[in-house]
């Protein structure tokens, strides 16, 4: 079953075309990788799905509902959580508080109705707390649960951000370069977490990643973007041998290796 369908999405910033006629379908329960050179439009695509950007044209359907008609803060309620390329945690708060904020959509909030955690809502808070503690166990971050997020090492912050997204109990998880800047060991841990999330919790994962080894290892389906357009799509094997994809990547390497 198709869970997420991006249909004919075009996104322009003034003269810059970040996305052009993008079509993409993510199967329920799959790990779907989005790859492509820097500036290809990968982050812009995630931003369109989570409604931080509004497509110039096209529509995006999640479980049959047109996301482009929803306010950005409604996306979490629909069952979509995400992480950001440049870690966007609540830096002044503890790890625990960050994860508890992931429960926000499940709180009966509001100035008057939600009020304070007293009586009945105290019991509610305990239930939320249990879900969060379970995620803390799963990600092996017990030791840092009371630490202020801003003081943590980069790799741990990435892990906390994943935890906060999980606390939403989403059905679709969008991850923007979850392993960027990590060492090999940290990457392996992260890859294992993503596989477990997908298999044990049944959460669909759409992730952007540069490490081709990891992408080929864990994804069911790969979409390749270049200059805002899709230039290849299929299983890891199909994409790896696709001449368009190879030339796009070779092109990038030529640029990278050119002496300055």
């Amino acid at each position, binding site marked *: 079953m198709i869970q997420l369908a991006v249909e004919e999405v075009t996104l322009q910033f003034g003269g810059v075309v970040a996305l052009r006629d993008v079509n993409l379908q993510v199967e329920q329960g799959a790990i779907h990788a989005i790859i492509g050179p820097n500036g290809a439009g990968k982050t812009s695509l995630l931003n369109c799905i989570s409604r931080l950007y509004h497509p110039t044209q096209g529509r995006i359907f999640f479980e049959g509902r047109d996301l482009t008609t929803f306010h950005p803060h409604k996306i979490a309620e629909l069952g979509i959580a995400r992480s950001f390329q440049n870690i966007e945690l609540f830096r002044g708060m503890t790890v625990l508080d960050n994860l508890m904020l992931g429960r*926000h959509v499940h709180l009966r909030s509001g*100035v008057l109705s939600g009020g304070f955690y007293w009586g009945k809502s105290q019991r509610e808070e305990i239930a939320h707390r249990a879900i969060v503690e379970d995620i803390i166990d799963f990600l092996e971050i017990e030791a840092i649960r009371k630490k202020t997020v801003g003081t943590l090492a980069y790799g741990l912050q990435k892990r906390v951000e994943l935890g906060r997204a999980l606390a939403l109990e989403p059905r679709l998880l969008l991850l923007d370069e979850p392993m960027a800047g990590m060492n090999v060991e940290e990457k392996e841990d992260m890859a294992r977490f993503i596989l477990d999330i997908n298999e044990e919790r049944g959460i669909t994962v759409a992730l952007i990643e540069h490490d081709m080894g990891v992408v080929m290892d864990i994804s069911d389906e790969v979409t390749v973007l270049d200059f805002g357009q899709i230039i290849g799509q299929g299983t890891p094997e199909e994409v790896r041998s696709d001449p368009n994809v190879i030339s796009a990547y070779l092109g990038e390497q030529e640029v990278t290796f050119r002496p300055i």
Partner: protein
Amino acid sequence: MELFLQLTLTGLTNGAIFALVALGFVLIYKSSDVINFAQGELLLVGAYLIYAFVAELGFPWSVGILITLGLAVVVGVLVERFVLRPLIGEPIISVIMVTIGLSSLLRAIVNAIWGTYGRAFPAFIPSTNVYIFGAVVPADRLIAIGLSLLLLGAFTLFFRYSPDGIAMRATADDQQAALSMGISVKHIFAVAWSISAVTAAVAGALVANIVGVSGDVSRIGLRVFPVVILGGLDSVPGAVIGGVIIGLLEVYTGGYIGSGLSQVLPFIALILILMIRPYGLFGEERIERV
């Protein structure tokens, strides 16, 4: 000794009023990183509304205050809808500039309706003298102390335990992340401005009871700047303790050194403290990513 006691009491009561005004500032800064230059004018509007309902329209004072507090909530919602929402995505500095515009606008509206001359505030807040160990304090000042302690407690609980309060801190920290958690940033801003306007209306009534209903009410907005910067722009207890420090400093200098210095000294103290603690006494240190 008697002078010291008298000065201390006066300083504490002035400080309580500063603290009340400062709490309004902190609330808006905590949720949106915006320094609200219109805070003084929110006091002014609050004072004039109560004056209008009680003195001009003859409502009982309790009803007048209730309607004013209700209208303060409306002001907060309107500010979000027509001032903040169009500026979403713009740099914070633009929003701060707009609050300066808002302050002129509110002042102009008040002047247009009520003119620029001062009036007496309807006498319903008791201002009889209370004697404490031989020192004299007007009762309205004691009410100010009680109210700021009450609000301090309420705000502390709000930011620590209520979903809206926690969401407000999160929004100040990172708006994109807050949105992705399902927090409605618009709702949070409206709540912050509404509570801030309500606090300002209460403070406005207390100030107007002392200085009368006139443009002078909003001047306290400027005098409170050293208070919030001293205490830390994002700290609720900092607002109260900063208020007390500045209140005491002002009267001690006025009483022992000379009244000319009393307006200057708070700023000198401010500079000294900021040299040691750039984020204010209780402000959260922010490590900026480059």
